[in-house]
């Protein structure tokens, strides 16, 4: 099956090269595409210099719009499986093959979870609290248990690619998309992965916007489960 790794990148000049080189080393035959979300630093220049496969957005769309561009590219080029991976080195490409296998086994989405085998970077206490809250919320609203609802390391099949092409949340998309998929009764599975502390770049969630994040995601998950049947 044709697989594409989607790597959204915003101001990732410090780590994009390492991330891609590690990906090529571990998965030499896999296709990938970097979505440069109008970075203000040298991310695009580094990609061009190294001949990385990159799509560059002319204006900044935010994480949702960037990732969706990757899914649109996957659909346009007829990929069977799309894997989402961060550019900052948090996600180790060695787990890609497991995620792909889970999709080949018939799942609509395979989520890499850092909480199944509690090893590697476990995130900060406050974010774990948030993650467990969304996990409980999704369980309550849809009956489906997802431990790492904010994980951006995941693989999806063609059916889910098409759904994501139609609509994808603007910001903080993961918990919301998980809720939509759960409500639509898509087959969801979680696989253990070890995440690493980011090697560069900054999280899109800062203390000042964390309250907005918390409320927005909670509301989005709630509304998503209302509107989907």
């Amino acid at each position, binding site marked *: 099956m044709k697989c594409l790794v989607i790597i959204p990148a915003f101001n990732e000049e410090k780590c994009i090269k390492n991330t891609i080189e590690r990906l090529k080393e571990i998965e030499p035959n896999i296709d990938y595409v970097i*979505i440069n979300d109008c970075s203000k630093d040298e991310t695009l220049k580094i990609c061009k210099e190294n001949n990385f496969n990159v*799509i*560059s*957005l*002319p*204006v900044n*769309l935010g994480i949702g*719009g960037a990732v*969706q*561009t990757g899914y*649109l*590219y996957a659909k*346009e080029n007829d990929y069977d499986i799309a894997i989402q991976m961060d550019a900052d080195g948090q996600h180790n490409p060695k787990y890609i093959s497991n995620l792909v296998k889970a999709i080949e086994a018939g799942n609509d989405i395979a989520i890499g979870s850092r909480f199944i085998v509690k090893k590697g970077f476990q995130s900060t206490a406050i974010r774990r609290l948030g993650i467990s809250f969304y996990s409980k919320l999704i369980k309550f609203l849809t009956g489906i248990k997802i431990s790492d609802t904010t994980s951006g390391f995941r693989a999806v099949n063609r059916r889910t690619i098409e759904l994501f092409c139609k609509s994808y949340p*603007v910001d903080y998309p993961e918990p919301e998309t998980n809720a939509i998929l759960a409500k639509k009764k898509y087959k969801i599975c979680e696989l253990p992965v070890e995440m690493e502390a980011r090697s560069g770049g900054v999280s899109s969630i800062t203390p000042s916007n964390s309250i907005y994040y918390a409320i927005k995601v909670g509301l989005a998950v709630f509304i998503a489960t209302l509107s989907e049947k």
Partner: protein
Amino acid sequence: MEHSVLHIIGDKKMDLTLQIILIVITIVFVFFIITVTKKKQLSYRFTMLWLFMSLCLLTIAIFPGLISTLAKIVHIEVPANALFVLLIGANIVIIFLITMGYSKHSEKITKLVQTNALLEKRIEELERNINKE
């Protein structure tokens, strides 16, 4: 005209001056709306909205008794408050419509940006293939 703007704001006798000021301001506003529409700085959807608002203001300025009647109907003691409720309500509706429009536009822009980026990618690849040949 028994009721005036002053009548609704205080409970004094009608003051024609204030009424005239309001009417003049509204007419100036209408001219301004038409001017910017002519210059294509305002689309007809909103021209109609603002002209409608002006018409309402003009009606209230000419017939302030309407507000007193409205106040009585909905049991607002001071007629001026009825005027405020009406205007604030209209503002909320307009702002809500604007945020809805803004959301729709954001979505359209996202779609455009994505299509543009994907097209650029395809052109790049085509050019590379041509250069290879």
